[in-house]
């Protein structure tokens, strides 16, 4: 070990060391500055994810269902949910595609059966023209659907599916500014009457009480559910932000590989230059009895040291450079507030990858130099 340190001291004093460290530092600075911007973006995404309304809607659907209408959940699940103290309200819904026959046309429409139509429409913040459907032969029609099929309050229509049919009367037309505006909302009783199967619903929509720890509440709900059921949050802001950020990180990863390849070649050049410039020193060491292994280790240690110094300097330069650029940008445009920074984990990753690619780059010249006999080195 002592021998290596003495040898290293001799090599580091050579004139080329400063430029070797600088060349690696500038390459690392490129990666570090990009990573500092990526870390800033990742922080913004994390903050955005935390801003998501924790008391938002959650829906429970079948695990294998691609769409709501494919989903089938036992009504027992909603009974179980009502026993959880974190849950504020529960809306089991049966959603089906049915044929709607009016005086003028036949169309395929979505029919949504709910236990309490009034509560459901209030939840959607709907305005209603007419009254709320209360019995199995009454329905509320969404405004978009009503406009398209010329349905008015008081109109009668037939809902048909799989041979089953029921005559219902439009008692109100509503506007909720959701998908329900293109649907027919009926009491659950009506859906069960036409389509049978009273034991299942399509989805269960539920809301958590305000101020509840959503993670804890959701894990409690999840424990209640059978295996083939999943919970989805209907507003997926953090998922979207994470994916968009991930798209950038994937490209950045591929792009960084090129920089690490240049670092490997630069380290090859550093090692080759060291060998060319230190021919005399290496010959003397061999004459004095140094083993091949020692020469190899010395070159490897020298390159690793320059890579270590270069990466530390490069990370500092890169982050400082990105911060300076963002400050200058803020002077030009005060609305732009970007504060690049680098996570310790990211800095360590950059440092280790630089060391790894540097070592990889210098192995061949180091091996080649160690194998040459000292008589050859003299020539």
């Amino acid at each position, binding site marked *: 070990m002592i021998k290596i340190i003495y040898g290293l001291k001799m090599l580091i004093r050579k004139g080329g060391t400063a430029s070797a460290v600088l060349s690696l530092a500038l390459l690392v600075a490129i990666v570090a500055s990009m990573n500092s911007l990526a870390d800033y973006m990742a922080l913004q995404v994390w903050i955005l994810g935390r801003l998501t309304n924790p008391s938002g809607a959650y829906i429970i659907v079948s695990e294998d269902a691609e769409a709501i209408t494919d989903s089938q959940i036992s009504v027992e699940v909603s009974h179980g949910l009502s026993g959880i103290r974190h849950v504020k309200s529960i809306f089991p819904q049966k959603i089906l595609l049915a044929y709607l026959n009016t005086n003028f046309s036949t169309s395929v429409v*979505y029919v949504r059966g709910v236990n309490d139509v009034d509560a459901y429409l209030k939840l959607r913040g709907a305005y209603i023209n007419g009254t709320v459907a209360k019995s199995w032969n009454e329905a509320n029609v969404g405004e978009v659907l009503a406009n398209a099929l010329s349905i008015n309050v008081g109109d009668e229509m037939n809902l048909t599916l799989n041979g089953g049919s029921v005559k219902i009367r439009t008692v109100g037309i509503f506007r909720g500014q959701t998908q329900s505006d293109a649907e027919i909302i009926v009491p659950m009783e009506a859906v069960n009457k036409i389509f049978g199967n009273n034991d299942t619903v399509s989805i269960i929509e539920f809301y958590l009480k305000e101020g509840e720890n959503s993670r804890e509440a959701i894990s409690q709900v999840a424990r209640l559910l059978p295996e083939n059921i999943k919970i989805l949050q209907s507003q997926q802001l953090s998922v979207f932000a994470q994916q968009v950020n991930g798209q950038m990180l994937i490209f950045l990863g591929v792009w960084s590989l090129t920089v690490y390849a240049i670092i490997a070649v630069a380290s090859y050049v550093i090692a080759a230059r060291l060998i060319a410039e230190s021919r005399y020193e290496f010959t003397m060491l061999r004459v004095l009895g140094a083993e091949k292994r020692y020469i190899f280790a010395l070159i490897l240690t020298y390159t690793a040291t320059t890579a270590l110094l270069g990466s530390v300097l490069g990370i500092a330069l890169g982050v400082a450079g990105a911060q300076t650029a963002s400050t200058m940008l803020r002077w030009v445009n005060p609305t732009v507030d970007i504060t690049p920074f680098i996570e310790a984990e990211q800095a360590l990753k950059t440092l280790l990858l630089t060391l790894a690619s540097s070592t990889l780059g210098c192995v061949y010249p180091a091996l080649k130099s160690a194998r040459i006999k000292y008589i050859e080195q003299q020539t």
Partner: protein
Amino acid sequence: MRLARFRYLKKQRILTLALTLALSSMLFSMTAFSLLGFYRGFTSYLGEEEGVVAIYNVKGGTPFTGLVPIYLAERISVMNGVLASSPEVIVPCIIRGEALFLRGVLPKEFTKLNPLTILEGNMLNLDDFNSIIIGRNIAERLGLKPNNRVLVLGVLADRYLELQVKGIFASNSAIDDEVLAPLYVGQWLRGAGYGQVTLIRFKIDRSLVNPTAIFEEIAKESSEQIPNQGTSETPKPPEESIMPRMIMRFNIEEIGVDEVQKFMSNYIERYGFTRESLLILSATIFLFSGVSIAAAAKTIIIQHKGEINILRSIGASKRLLKRDLLIKILPWSLTSSLIGTAMAISVLTIIQECGYLKVLSHVVPFQLEPLILILNITLVFLLICVIILRYETDL
């Protein structure tokens, strides 16, 4: 004295310099192609044609988050020189776990600005309540076919919808990465009222009308009394009558009117991303790696110190040696920079085809720009000339 015939430089040693140059050129080209591709994709997102104008909310932090009153579409569409008007709601969403953008449109109006080719299934109509048509890139990525039903989850609002795929389209534009739905579906997912849209695009005859005239018309509209809801001076086409009519008040200071490319470039330039700044950034990255190129060039000279000394001792001047080194190294350098550019194009093509070259869920369209190629060759030429001509120590 002429040194052209003396082959004193070993190819293996020159290869190290060539490899450094090739990788540096690859890094420069990858950076420049992708950044300029992103810039071009972003600025042409709403169309590249001249004579397409957008009404947008100037206070929106992004082109996707502002809202403007939809009734301006009716008002402006009756102006002389306005050929088509397309109100649109652009909204992020999640479909089958993938982050995407859904655009609520009036299909007939939209296709006047962006012609679509239906590859499978059928074209969308405004009265297809719960239907969507999807771009071919999304269809490939998600494995969707006509008649498939999907669960769409909201991002900006607490919404979930079940929608059926009616068709798959191609447009050879950014819309191939989007989902098109009737306008009101976009409004549901955005959590906006029926009276609001993200933006309104117009196709105009520039000899008859311009963005300033449109803005003046809107300013006049804002100062006038808002008509009662449900009444309209310009009757809607029958298919649009299914949408509830709402007229929203607006503040003229929040409304902007611009050519679509200018509108999009204004957004991106807020963050300092101009075409020139992106090229300078790419060139800076090349110059940072230039120190490694300089080190590789110096190493070649050091490794050939013996040969150079012999040439000097038989009468070769420093000037002659520098000129000869330049003649011998430059072709290698230029060739390797071209190879580097070719490698960058190959890598970008591969990652684009694998679906990894995306920004905001849209594929970044990179093009072979001659400017990048010329800049790369010029930078390499200058760098090698400076390194060799300024090198003194060992010659």
